Structure formats: structure tokens, C-alpha cells
């Protein structure tokens, strides 16, 4: 792989990891959703770049799925839910941002120190992608632990799968990458729908949350 092609791939991989850290910083739900959508968009770019440089067209499908589902559809769904359910947009972290950051850096170092010696025989880009991917995949659960909020947990889960897809994209000739990314997306989307959607429907017998406000109106005239 030529110098520039590698540099671009490196840039995109590093951006995915940097955005994972940016995610740990967010105090607002909407901002967190936007960051994870951005991460998915960068992931799509990374997949597309791999598809071009390695001449493996099936990665374009992965890129398209990342872009359509993860960067657009699921974030839009989450935004819609937040509006619909009137979820408060600020999340206070369970423990401090500094501690979270420290842990994040530690986890990243761990991922790199684990992956690099392990993959001594592989290509440069793959080793790097795997290291970044593992770091992202471990930062996702860290986010879930650091913020006890359902929406942030979905965001953390999405970020985790972004990392895994990054790894899968980097592994040369890995079959079923497309299938894996589809099933992840389906899982997230279905579950968000399944839980929130039905929850509301059962509770108020209608999807219209304005009924909730009506009830409050009756109680406090």
C-alpha cells in the first residue's frame, strides 16, 4: 500500500478512535448521538477507502450500511425518541470526566499493547485497525458504565459496533462483514423500537405522548 493511501486509512482509523473519546466527553444526549453518527460516517469513509484501495467491492456495501443505518437512520430514530418521550437532554456522569478519560487512555494503551505484539506477521494497516478497533470496542462499554442512561447506553453500544466493523473492514478477505454489520444494525433498531415503542404504547394506549401532558393538565389545573 502506498504512502498516501496508508496515511488516509490511518487518518480515518484514528478519527474513529478520537471520536470515541469525544463521546466520553458529551454531557448532552443529542450531542452524543451526533458524535456517534459522525463516527459512523467516518467508518463508512474508512470502509469505502478500503474498498477502493484493496479493490474489494463488497466493502462498499458495508460503507453504505454504515452510512445509511448508523449515521442517518438510527440517530434520527434516537432524536425522534428523545423528542417524543421528552427525555431530559443532560446526562450527569456517574464518575468524573477526568477519571473516565484516564480510564479511556488506559484502555486504549491496553488494546494497543495487546494487539500489536500479537499480530506481528500481519500487514501494517490491519494491525493498526485492529488496535484502534479494540480500543473503540472497549471504550463503548466504558461509556455505558460511566453514564447510566438508556440512550447513552445505546450510543455506547453503537460506538462499540463501529469499532468492530472497523476491525472487520481491516481484516483482509473477512467473509460475512456485510452480514455482521446488517445484523448489528437490525439488532439496535429493533430493540430501540421494541422497548421504547411498546413501552409507550402499553402505558398510554397510544403513541401520542401528548396524552401524557393532558393527564398532567388534569391533575394540575
Amino acid at each position: 500500500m502506498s504512502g498516501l493511501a496508508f496515511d488516509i486509512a490511518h487518518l480515518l482509523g484514528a478519527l474513529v478512535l478520537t471520536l470515541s473519546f469525544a463521546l466520553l466527553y458529551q454531557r448532552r444526549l443529542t450531542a452524543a448521538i451526533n458524535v456517534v453518527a459522525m463516527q459512523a460516517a467516518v467508518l463508512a469513509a474508512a470502509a469505502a477507502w478500503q474498498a477502493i484501495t484493496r479493490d474489494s467491492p463488497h466493502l462498499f456495501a458495508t460503507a453504505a450500511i454504515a452510512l445509511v443505518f448508523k449515521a442517518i437512520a438510527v440517530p434520527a430514530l434516537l432524536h425522534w425518541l428523545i423528542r417524543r418521550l421528552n427525555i431530559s437532554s443532560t446526562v450527569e456522569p456517574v464518575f468524573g470526566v477526568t477519571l473516565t478519560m484516564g480510564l479511556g487512555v488506559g484502555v486504549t494503551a491496553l488494546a494497543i499493547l495487546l494487539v500489536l505484539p500479537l499480530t506481528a506477521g500481519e500487514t501494517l494497516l490491519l494491525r493498526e485497525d485492529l488496535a484502534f478497533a479494540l480500543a473503540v470496542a472497549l471504550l463503548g462499554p466504558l461509556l455505558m458504565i460511566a453514564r447510566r442512561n438508556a440512550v447513552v447506553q445505546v450510543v455506547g453500544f453503537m460506538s462499540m459496533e463501529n469499532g468492530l466493523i472497523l476491525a472487520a473492514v481491516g481484516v483482509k478477505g473477512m467473509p460475512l462483514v456485510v452480514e455482521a454489520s446488517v445484523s448489528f444494525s437490525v439488532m439496535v433498531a429493533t430493540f430501540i423500537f421494541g422497548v421504547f415503542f411498546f413501552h409507550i404504547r402499553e402505558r398510554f394506549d397510544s403513541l401520542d405522548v401528548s396524552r401524557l401532558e393532558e393527564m398532567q393538565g388534569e391533575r394540575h389545573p
Partner: protein
Amino acid sequence: MTALAILVVQLVAPAVLAPLLTGLIRKIKARLLGRRGPPLLQPYRDLARLMRKEPILAHNASWLFRGAPYGALGAVWLAMAAIPTFTTVSLGLGLDLIAIAGLLGLARILLALAGMDVGTSFGGLGTSREMTIGALAEPALFIAIMTLALVAHSTALPDLTLALSEGVGLRVSLALALGAIVMVAMAETGRIPIDNPATHLELTMVHEAMVLEYSGRHLALIELGAMLKLALYLSLIACIFTPWGIARDAQPAALAIGLGLWLLKLAAGGLALAVFETAIAKMRVFRYPEFLGAALLFGVLGTVFLYISQHLK
């Protein structure tokens, strides 16, 4: 002969131009807010006015209080002279990035001690905040320096400038280091969102609170030091991240181009800073650690990415 001339320009030009830069930023900010703003040369007039005035000292002020402004300005000035603003030749000072960071730290310590010297509450408050920021900003700066040193295999600025101007490809690490240094610079020079140089509101001021006791020529020196520090950070960022056009030898034509480009870079930096400050709100004091933590994180990530890509190659 040329070497001497270069040294003189290196030493004198920043001190002469720094108030102009400050004036320019104030002017642009005022224009952006729809005001006419003070004239460009107003900072010179302010400094001259302060120089003429007699400093008023508290009766319990010690020699440290009187000496600190001179020491602080001297340290900043020396650091400024070590930056290859328009040429990489003949600085002869042997000061590298770490020494520059050290000199800036020294200036801060002097002012902090002076701030506590008189024992007023504002001095102590300002000092405490300034030191908090410093304690967070310095590690971030050092980590960013480390990233740069890994790229150039040197911490000397002329080497760095040369190495980076030759092109090192697309480096995400450098972008992160740039982010870290810019954030540190904003904190260190007391700009929005960390501090507001135009306010004397006791709840929010940092630097201004620390030097509230100063007056007359002492204050002039401190103000000049602050202006110089701003010019220093802008020049530092310019010489590392936009190393184009910096003269590599003592050819008069190259020197002239270097000088002209430097002035342009300073003006562009000032413009960017003014636009940014107008667009953003000041942060709460409690958020400083997060802001500077992010700078530190950028530095660390930059180093990590660089480590990986160099380790692999």
C-alpha cells in the same frame, strides 16, 4: 553582520509588534460586534500612559512584588526570541521547545508569587485559578511537544520547522498536537473561553485578578508581557504548523519574504482568534479541567497514534 541584524530584529520586532497585534484583535472583535472600536494604535498609547504614571505600592509590598514584572517580561521576551519567526538561522540562543515552556512557566510563577505577596483576596483568588490552569495546561503542552519531537526527532524549533516544512504526509497526530497546543495557548494567554481579557468581573476574571494590585509602569510591563505572550503563541503555532516561507539562510530576499509572511501569519492568527472569541461563550470555572483535559487527551492520542504508525513502519 547579517547575523547580528537578524538577532536584533528577532529581539526587537516582537516587542514592537505585539501591541499592534492586540490592537488588531480588539479592532476586529469590535467590528464583528458592530462597534467601531478603539484605534489600532491604542495599546501603544495605553502602555505609554501607564509608563508615565507613578506605580502605587501597597505598604507591605516586598521586593518580589516590585521585581516580578521585570522578571516576567524578561522571561517571555527571551522565550519569544527563541522562536524562528521568519528565519531558522543564527538564533544562537540554544533554546528548544522545552526551554520555552520552562521560561513561560517561570513568568507565571513570578506573577503568581507577586499576586499573593500583598495578601489581598483578589490576588490570592486569581493566583489560585491561574495556577490551576497552569497545572493542567503544562502537561498538555509537554505531551504535544513530545508528539512533535517524535516526528522531527528533535525538540529544537529550527529542526522542527525544517522537518515539518519538508512534508511528512498526512498526519493525524500533528492535527491532534495542533489542537492541543491551540487549546493550551487559549488557556495560557487568558483568552475566551477560559478567561476574558476585557472583563473585571470578580466572579470570572483570572489573570486580571492576579495583577489587580499593579499600577503605573509595573502594570505596563505586565500588559506588554501578556501581549508578547499572545504573539509568542501565535508565532509558535505558525512556525510549527505553517512552516512555509521561513528563510533557511541569510539571503536578504529570503529574509524579506520570511518577515512578510510572518506578519501575514500573525494577522491571520489574530483574525481567527477574534472570530473564534466572538462566536463562543466563556466557560464556567469548574469546566476548566475538562477543557484542558481534552487538550491533554489530544496530546496523548497524538503520541499514541504516532507511536503506532512509527512502531509499525
